[in-house]
Structures are given as structure tokens and as C-alpha cells.
């Protein structure tokens, strides 16, 4: 599958839209005073640079949260999918309820519960419990549920003949799954996984509810302090570029797996 939106002309026009909107926002900021055009350009540039710099630290947390979530949620989601597909009714029902709750309640609520839960339920102190860690746990729990359902749909879409051929050839159950089935599953689930991953990039901004110092948290503070929308626009550019890279990487992987059908 080739996405047409990765052409250079598209990149340029997307960035132009962001640039134009920041100029408009900035123009609104300075509309009351009456500075010269030259000083305007210099000041605008200085402000953008300082905002980008201040946001940078938050971006590190956003990116960290993103990668840690992917790192743990992909394998954990596979385990949940196994549980869900298990013949053991207890295990499969636990997984079913888990997925249902994780997908049926807001991620923001889950963040709050994971962070404050230990304090309210067990009286645990929040001192040695960093917000960032809580955010990673909540995101992994939430995204595993989504990934589990994607894995499950992928696994059940593999024809039974593949299992039978492997069985007759003497492959063990593990060999059959990891050598024959999983590679085909990965290829099939790549498009829905890409969707989730792109959503995840944007969802990292929810970590602000438990005061993780991520991009959006800082952008909001800056916007309040400066009484300007410019920091929010800059944050938007950060998220956009981040997702752009993610989409590009996923497309590359998809292409790499295009050698078979």
C-alpha cells in the first residue's frame, strides 16, 4: 500500500500551513502595539526559538512514553490475545473483561486510577512513585488491550491449512506459531497497528492529567503565561513531525513485507 501523502510537495505545504498559522497567531499577539516590520520578524523568530527550546524537554518525555509503551504493550498485548483465545474459560473470560474495561473507559480515567489508586487503596505514598512511571503503566495496560484484539483478528485470519501443513511436517506448536503463523500475522495486522501507533503519539498528551511534564503540559503553561496561542501551534508542529516520522517508518516496514502475499 502506498500512501501518496509522503511526497515532498506535501511536506512543504503542510509546513507552510503551520508557518502561516503561527504568523497569523503572532500577528494577533502584536496587533495592539505598533512595531516596525523588521523588529517584528526578529522578535517572532526569537519567540519561536525559545518556545521550541522550552518544549524540547517535554518532547523527550512524550517520545520516551511513546517508545516505552510500544516496547511493553506489543508483547503484553500478544499475551492478552493468547489468554483471550485460550480454551480455558476462566483465562479467556478474564482477558475478555480486561479488554472490555480498557477499551470501554477513558484513558484519562485509567491514568488517574493508576497514579492515585495505590494511595487511596493502600495508603501508599506517592513520593517514590514518579508520574512518568504511572503514565507508562497506564498506557501499556490500555494499549495492550487494543493490540490484543488486533493480534486476535490477525491470528484468526490465518487459514487452518497453514497449521495443518506445519503439523504434518512435524513442526512443534511453538515452531508453528513463531515460524509459520506470527510472521504472516504481523504482515496482516500492520495497517491497524499503524493506526493505533499514530493515535498513541497524540494520546501521550493525556499524561498531563497526572502532571507528567510532557510536550502538551508545557505548551499549555507557556500559552497561559504568554497569553498567546503560539506555544500551542509549536506543540502541534512537534506532534505532527513525530507522527510523520512514525507513519514513514511504518510504511517502510509495510513495503519490506510486500515481498509475499
Amino acid at each position: 500500500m502506498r500512501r501518496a501523502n509522503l511526497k515532498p510537495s506535501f511536506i512543504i505545504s503542510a509546513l507552510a500551513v503551520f508557518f502561516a498559522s503561527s504568523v497569523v497567531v503572532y500577528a494577533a499577539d502584536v496587533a495592539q502595539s505598533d512595531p516596525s516590520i523588521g523588529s517584528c520578524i526578529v522578535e517572532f523568530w526569537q519567540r519561536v526559538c525559545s518556545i521550541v527550546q522550552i518544549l524540547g524537554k517535554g518532547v523527550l518525555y512524550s517520545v520516551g512514553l511513546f517508545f516505552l509503551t510500544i516496547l511493553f504493550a506489543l508483547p503484553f498485548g500478544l499475551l492478552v490475545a493468547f489468554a483471550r483465545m485460550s480454551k480455558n474459560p476462566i483465562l479467556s473470560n478474564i482477558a475478555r473483561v480486561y479488554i472490555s474495561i480498557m477499551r470501554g473507559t477513558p484513558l484519562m480515567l485509567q491514568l488517574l486510577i493508576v497514579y492515585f489508586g495505590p494511595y487511596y487503596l493502600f495508603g501508599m505514598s506517592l513520593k517514590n512513585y514518579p508520574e512518568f512511571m504511572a503514565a507508562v503503566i497506564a498506557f501499556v495496560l490500555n494499549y495492550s488491550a487494543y493490540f490484543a484484539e488486533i493480534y486476535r483478528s490477525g491470528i484468526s485470519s490465518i487459514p487452518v491449512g497453514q497449521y495443518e501443513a506445519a503439523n504434518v511436517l512435524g513442526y512443534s506448536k511453538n515452531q508453528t506459531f513463531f515460524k509459520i503463523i506470527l510472521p504472516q500475522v504481523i504482515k496482516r495486522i500492520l495497517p491497524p497497528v499503524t493506526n493505533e501507533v499514530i493515535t498513541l503519539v497524540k494520546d501521550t498528551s493525556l499524561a498531563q492529567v497526572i502532571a507528567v511534564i510532557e510536550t502538551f503540559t508545557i505548551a499549555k503553561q507557556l500559552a497561559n503565561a504568554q497569553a498567546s496561542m503560539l506555544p500551542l501551534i509549536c506543540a502541534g508542529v512537534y506532534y505532527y513531525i513525530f507522527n510523520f516520522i512514525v507513519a514513514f517508518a511504518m510504511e517502510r516496514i509495510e513495503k519490506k513485507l510486500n515481498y509475499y502475499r
Partner: protein
Amino acid sequence: MAVLEIKNLHKSFGELEVLKGVDLSVAKGEVVSIIGPSGSGKSTLLRCATLLERMDKGSMAYLGDYAVSEGENGKSIYASNDELRRLKRHFGLVFQNFNLFPHYSVIKNIVDAPITVQHRNKDEVYEKARLLLDKMGLKDRENYYPHQLSGGQQQRVSIARALINDPAVLFFDEPTSALDPELTQEVLKIIRELAEQKTTMVIVTHEMNFAAEVSNKIIFINEGLIVEEGTPQEVIYSPKIKRTQEFLAHLK
């Protein structure tokens, strides 16, 4: 000693008894064709023989080694998983829908199991695989992927895959049912050649003329029982049993 010896095979799916006591003995170098109407149990028989289904009653031995033995009341007792896996080397199965692994190249489809499952010598296996591909008329296709091949070519690859361990018996489950007439011919030609080389084969098929031509023995199954068996001359050209006559009359 028989290559395959099945005795008193019973198999039910829920309430439905599909096989009601079937005996099958295949000698070395013999080609046995199993014919019969849809739902007669011929595919189930093949699936039990290749351990894809578990039989309820009866016994089964490959080259005298019991995969399934009879316990109390004739109930089937399966050998250990290790023993079953060892016995799988004795047979190969060619499916109706080929069931090649789409993410493996032609050659990898053939060599992967012997190398990773049976831990055979890599160079030897590759050499054997190339020999088989040559025999199948696919010498220049080893680096292709299944989707780049025609159905007939895919089926020939799967025959090579089934032959890589030199099985004592090769099973075919309606090997040409998914192919058009032209491609059917190229697959039948290969099976004919295998028969000439005295490969032991059990073939479930609807191609009566072909079955008559290559087989030493024809078995007609109806409603889970062997109705008639014998040489092609006896079963196909001059069947004694009325049900066999009816079935063959329908085909003509």
C-alpha cells in the same frame, strides 16, 4: 511388512459417525486410490492416517511401529507426542489447497522442516531439494514466492515438500480439485512418474480414469465403510456391488 496398517478405524464428529470400522493396508510400492461420494469419509480417513484427526477406535502402524494402538473395547490409544513426531517422517501429505507457506520462498518451503525439525544436514537437504525441484520441472523457480507461481506449480512445490524426507508413503488429498484441467494434467503427470518409480502412494481423488491408470488397488468408500476394493479392473470397470455401480454410473 505393510508400510501402513490401519485396523477397525472408527471416527465420529459429535453424533455423526463418519468412519464405521475401516481397514486399510498399504504395501511397499503400492498405489492405492480411495474413491467415493462426498461425505463418504474418504478425506477423514486420510486425515486420521496423517494424524490431523484423532481416531476414536482402532489402531494404526507405520512400518510396524504403532502410532495408535487398541485399548479396552478397541478404543484408540495414541503414542507419545515424541513418538508421533518421529513417525511423521514416514509420511508426506499433499493438500487440495497446496498450503504452501506464503512468506517462504519455494526452496525454503521445502528445506525448512527437515532442517529445523529433523535437524538434517543443511547442504544435503538443499541438494535433495534442488534435485526434487528439477524433477518437478521447477529448477529455475527456487527463489520465487508461492504467489508468483501458478496453481499447478504450487502443487508441484508441495509435492516436493512432501517428498523431502523420503517418506515411506505419500498421501494426496484431492490434489487436483483446486486446479483447472490444463494444470490438473501437469500435476497428474508428476504423480504418474512417481508411480512409475514405485513410490508408495495413497490418493483420494475424483479423477476416475487417472485412478484406474496409476493404481494397483482401488477402494470404494460409502457412508463410512469400504464397500468394494480390488484392482482397477475389478472396481472401476466391472464393479460387483450395486452401490459402486451407481456411483460410477453418475460420473459417466
